[in-house]
């Protein structure tokens, strides 16, 4: 289970492109991303993770959170990222950028899941 997911996007040529997608453990496996993105990919669209609106990014992230069993994610635009980075002096502050400047997305399933004996011990 990923703790939380960070998503960085930019707006260009009338679409939103996700340019970074990671958790504190590293990049989200491309297999998972491809599988979730296949629901959103428009036919004939160029390579990359392109979405039509911020709402759609939100829906994509919810699906991704659900797939990776992560409790929450933060989405951040390049512009807000640049503002955030400007005030950071070290990596400790940098790690907080997504939380401080991003939009929080909750995994609707995470609170409802019944914990079995194993998850109680291991999560």
């Amino acid at each position, binding site marked *: 289970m990923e703790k939380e997911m960070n998503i960085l996007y930019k707006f260009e040529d009338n679409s939103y492109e996700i340019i970074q997608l990671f958790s504190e453990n590293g990049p989200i496996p491309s297999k998972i991303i491809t599988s979730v993105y296949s629901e959103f990919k428009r036919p004939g669209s160029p390579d990359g993770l392109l979405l039509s609106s911020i709402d759609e990014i939100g829906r994509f992230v919810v699906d991704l959170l659900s797939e990776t069993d992560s409790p929450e994610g933060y989405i951040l635009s*390049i512009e807000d990222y640049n503002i955030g980075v400007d005030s950071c002096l070290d990596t400790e502050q940098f790690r907080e950028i997504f939380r401080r400047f991003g939009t929080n997305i909750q995994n609707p399933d995470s609170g409802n899941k019944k914990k079995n004996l194993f998850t109680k011990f291991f999560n």
Partner: protein
Amino acid sequence: MQLTTPELKEYDSVFPGENWFFYWKTSPALWESKFQEYNDLSPIFIPIYWGLHCEDPDQLDFGTNRPETDLKRLFTLAERYRKEVILILPITPCPFLTNGGLPSYLSRSLMCAEDGRVLTIVDNEKRLNKLFSFYDPRIFQSFRKFTWHLGQFLSQNGFNKEVFGADFGYLKENRFESYFRDYSLTFDKGFHRYLSQIEQSEPEKIEKLKIDKLYEQVLKEDYSSLVKGLYLEAANETIPANWSGVLKFTCLGGAPDDIFSRSFERWESEAQFIKPLLEILVNDIIPSSVLLSKNMKTNVLKKALKDIVSQSLIKTHLNNDLYEEDLHTGYQPQVLFKVFCSDADNLIESTSLKYFFDREYQWMYRIHNQPFHYPQDYEDAEKVHFFFGKNLSLKDFNQILKLFLNGGRIFLDSFQMTQELSRKLNLFITENSIETERINFTSPLLKASLGDGLIVVYDSAKLEEASLMKRVTFWQTMVKFLNLRICKLVIEDGLMYVWKHRGSNTYELNYEEIRRVSFYNPTSYRKKASIGSSQNYAFLKTVDEMSADVKSTPVGIDVDLMPGGSVSIDFGYFE
């Protein structure tokens, strides 16, 4: 509980990389002891920290007011302890310096990576260094003023130390991208000023831009080269007696995306830096680990850095005749192929040449992006040279023919080669009665040979039309014909290796040279490799075994490496 005496953290920040000395990171009172402590034989790189010497726009300080800026004392101490010092003057934003090295009063326009993100680099103490655009005209004017004062300071004090300009950069899709390249608004503003200027002087370019939007990229490259040239010219003109040229450096962990992995402890690992280290080597750039913390350089990366960023590698780049003797006694990376192509050219990728090298001759090739020059004492004539006709000038072409006449083996891509050069080649063949052969094999081929000299002309456009498998077969066949004698290695995924060689000494006269293969296992799994026996290689010894097991078998040598393990194996090579 720690049982050993902890090493002082300060040492790591003062000497953060292989041979770098950061004089501003220690008290001037300790400079003397720091020079005494430095026991590496490589010359010491001392970067000139512009921002430190220029806190105020109207005042430059080389030791008049603050002892930490006293370069005169610094150089005198280096001389006293007979340390060879090389001054490094960044001509691009510098990734390991605050504000990229700029004085704070000039740090106004942040530079951006291609995706629009502000370019921020994590240093060896986990601080963030923001880089600023060198396209800000105020920066250029101040840079010129600073280098003028530096030049005056060096000449007035009689310091004859070499000053190299440093072009810092990172690897982008395995190719060098200078930090000079900027995608910020400051760059765009400058670019539009440039377009207004060329509208008068070269209107045909503007016309072409109106028709072809992609041409904008070409003009942006032109503009970038023009501005970079101004910085270089300024340094060359203002420090004429000491100026020794430009060195390219790539600091591991300094790519725009590295900020993410390097900010999370669970994500950053030394394994992620081994492959980039070898890619840097292939691109003929000096690698540096100054951005990495000491903790990151404990096992396999430490060994790889020690093996690869060696004294002889540094000295090869410094291109100094005084070092020639050292170059023959120290291990040098084994290079069989030299590819000359510009940064903008993708032909090495599109013809699958790089793919072929990476598959069969990994790390045994070098990509040079400057034009080929054939000096009289050219030492690399025995290597196989690759040239792309597309960007060759007549001058370059003459150098290539000179190499051929002196026994060089050459592959020449005729795609988009000018008529003039094609005619020159045909005339050259006829005039010298050179034996030729023409065949068709994936591409039309012309093979011309004279003594040891060989030139194979092919057409990359035809090659690009073929499947990947056909392209690889093409290169396999071409290279097989060259009869290169290398040991066949079979390695498991994730395992890294590199070949090096040195001349044989008086005790090794049976061999032409000694070849060393070093294996590194940066993964968390046990990995195996095997070296097939070859009639030109005689096993000599294993060196620096670390969590590794080497066994001789009837068909070669088996190597077993535990996670983080490494080992080197020496062979005597004879023809």
